């Protein structure tokens, strides 16, 4: 069977430009940039999966990639939120730089249990913003967005009436962290240096010294040794 599969990807560079004339309300937050533009035609790209896939897995993959779960407003909201959760800093880029919104779109399709909490959570957030600021969350100014996020981002000090928002933000925080730190950018940031052939010859000497531990003689005698 063929392993060449067509999946549908949006060309990210194109929709970056289009957002200045976006569709909903006032556009003030620069963090809106990384979102889908509805009019853009999907671009078909042939992608060969790089990991072993059974026919059933390929079928599911193609089905999911052809679907769209979040609408454009939801994707904009997700994009703003993930960049509030993981912004660019001196080490690495932001969550949207690492394409975390695309990951969240995929995982919502892949794990339907996330769909209602995410969709409903965005609704909850918009309603709260609308009551307070007369705007949807993405329509709010950056400082307004942070004002509301501050009320749902700290579970232990949140007011009881904000607990649904806390649950939504916890889920967003979890998915953002996973999406970011499983991207190439995130793994480089984290400093994970494995996943490559090597020889494990024990904890480095300076680390042993740092923690005041050492290998006993039995361990040194019996454990695998390497020529080089």
């Amino acid at each position: 069977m063929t392993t060449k599969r067509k999946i549908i990807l949006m060309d990210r560079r194109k929709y970056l430009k289009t957002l200045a004339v976006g569709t909903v309300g006032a556009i003030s937050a620069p963090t809106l940039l990384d979102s889908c533009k509805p009019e853009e035609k999907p671009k078909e790209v042939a992608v060969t999966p790089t990991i072993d896939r059974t026919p059933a897995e390929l079928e599911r993959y193609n089905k999911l990639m052809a679907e769209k779960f979040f609408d454009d407003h939801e994707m904009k909201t997700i994009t703003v939120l993930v960049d509030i959760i993981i912004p660019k800093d001196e080490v690495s880029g932001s969550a949207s730089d690492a394409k975390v919104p695309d990951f969240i779109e995929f995982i919502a399709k892949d794990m339907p249990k996330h769909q209602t909490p995410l969709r409903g959570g965005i609704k909850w957030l918009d309603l709260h913003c609308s009551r307070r600021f007369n705007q949807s969350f993405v329509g709010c100014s950056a400082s307004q967005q942070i004002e509301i996020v501050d009320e749902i981002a700290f579970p232990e000090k949140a007011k009881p009436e904000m607990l649904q928002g806390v649950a939504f933000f916890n889920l967003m925080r979890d998915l953002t962290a996973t999406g970011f730190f499983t991207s190439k950018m995130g793994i480089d940031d984290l400093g994970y240096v494995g996943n490559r052939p090597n020889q494990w010859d024990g904890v480095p000497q300076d680390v042993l010294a740092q923690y005041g531990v050492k290998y006993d003689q039995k361990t040194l005698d019996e454990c695998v040794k390497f020529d080089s």
Partner: protein
Amino acid sequence: MADFQIKKNPKTYDVVIVGSGAGGGMSAYVLSQAGLKVLLLEAGPMYDPAKNVTQLKWPWESPRRGASTKHRNFGDFDAAYGGWELEGEPYTHKDGTKFDWFRSRMLGGRTNHWGRISLRFGPKDFKRKSIDGMGDDWPISYDDIAPYYDKVDRLIGVFGSKENLPNDPDSIFLPPPKPRLHELFIKDAGTALNIPVIPARLSILTKKLPGNDARGNCFFCSQCNRGCTVYGDFSSSSVLVKPALETGHVDVIANAMVREVLTYSKGMATGVSYVSKDDMQEYEVSAKAVVLAASACESARLLLNSKSSNHPNGLANSSNIVGKYLHDSTGAGMGGILPKLVGRKRYNEDGVGGMHVYTPWWLDNKKLDFARGYHIEYYGGMGMPGYGFGFGIQGTNGKYPGRDGKQKQAGGYGVALKDDYRYFYGAQFGMDGRGEAIAREDNYCEIDPNTVDKYGIPVLRFHYKWSDQEVKQAKHMKDTFREIIHKMGGVVTWGDDGPENDYGLEAPGRIIHEVGTTRMGNDAKKSVLNKFNQAHDCKNLFVMDGGAFVSQADKNPTWTILALAMRASEYLIDEMKKQNI
């Protein structure tokens, strides 16, 4: 619809083997080396870890970042297809009891997934009834199986250390890898608590296996569960089936879902019938002997579904024991973080696929309120991130001061949160107990009279309950884990269960060590097989998977399945030479 006809394979084989996992792979290997003509039937597709690669892939190569799916319950990168539910292949439960049945239909079966933990049973493990009065003794002793353990060690390879423990016999070991940092802390804590922490025993080639040029050495990527492209660890597909095929004496048919064992009027087995998943046609194949190694429950299902006038109760079931004495290992876990490891220096500590140290059972049950022991498996450190990374940070970053030494509010967002993920990375660790359950007649699988799978084959119905023995054992595990974690200076973050949920005791089937459904014994009224895995009622029928176990021991079953399958296959060859079969 198309004409329904059964296609008969014109070739008569010496032996047809059902299933290509540890037992079936070993049998195919031994029989083919002796020149017997073997047909190996596998219910799933062909699989070769050198070709079906997920090893050394990055998390972003999976759109779900390695999360589990219904197609791969252990995650997108795991080698094992399948899981606890297979589409179109249901199983049912009786009396509201619970049993989760893990199936991996593919060449090599569940050896593509397992943790490579390769423990010999000890002398006491074969004589439990004599020791504590529960269950039954095996019809064999450690001395009967020891030479086969030796041969399995040499053929497949296992690392470990010589410890001279009374009930955890040493293998012929390759050298173990040095402990990782958190494992050194575990060892120190264990030593202070009189809990032994010794090198793990895993079938991974830390050094070249003497006399074997077909397999490469471990290159320490920590990904045995993904299958090894250089065959540096054991899976039946690469280590047993591959060389068996190379003898030229073995035919393998993939996607062959065996329906029943065929018998003729005198009741001997004549072959098997199967449905091909490729064309959905029915096939029959003849052989002088039949080896079932489809997994404990699947082999029991096959026997129970092989009814005839000579075997009205199912084949090899005059004892009415087939399906009974089903037992899985107990399991419970706990984990936490080690505050002294936050902000740790980065280096590659992948190591082998799994733990470098473990704890064998160390206590005397006479002084405890439960029978049978458990071993402890450990994990932790700076692993490759995957789906789930960073989840629940609000349970951690509000409990410990951050990099700046200041205590902050749990949760949060922004640059400070981003740094928390880095700061706490590699400080997590955990442990799992894997213990011996008592084999009991009233834990069983049977044929559901009302349900068939998509091939029309009647399915299994399970009835399984843990007893007080297992619950008390789980409580002891939790008490021990808490003690070890506290001694290490760690803080428990999950798994601190109590009586409200039976101390976190996993549901039966979750540990995937189920055995006992076609147990061996000297008394044909109380057992299905004799001490050579041969059916009492049908001398040219053998069961060479975990079904033959009388008791499970606090050890992973694979090494014992391999040793018994080797021993039984040699016996089968002898019996054929003597024309007894």
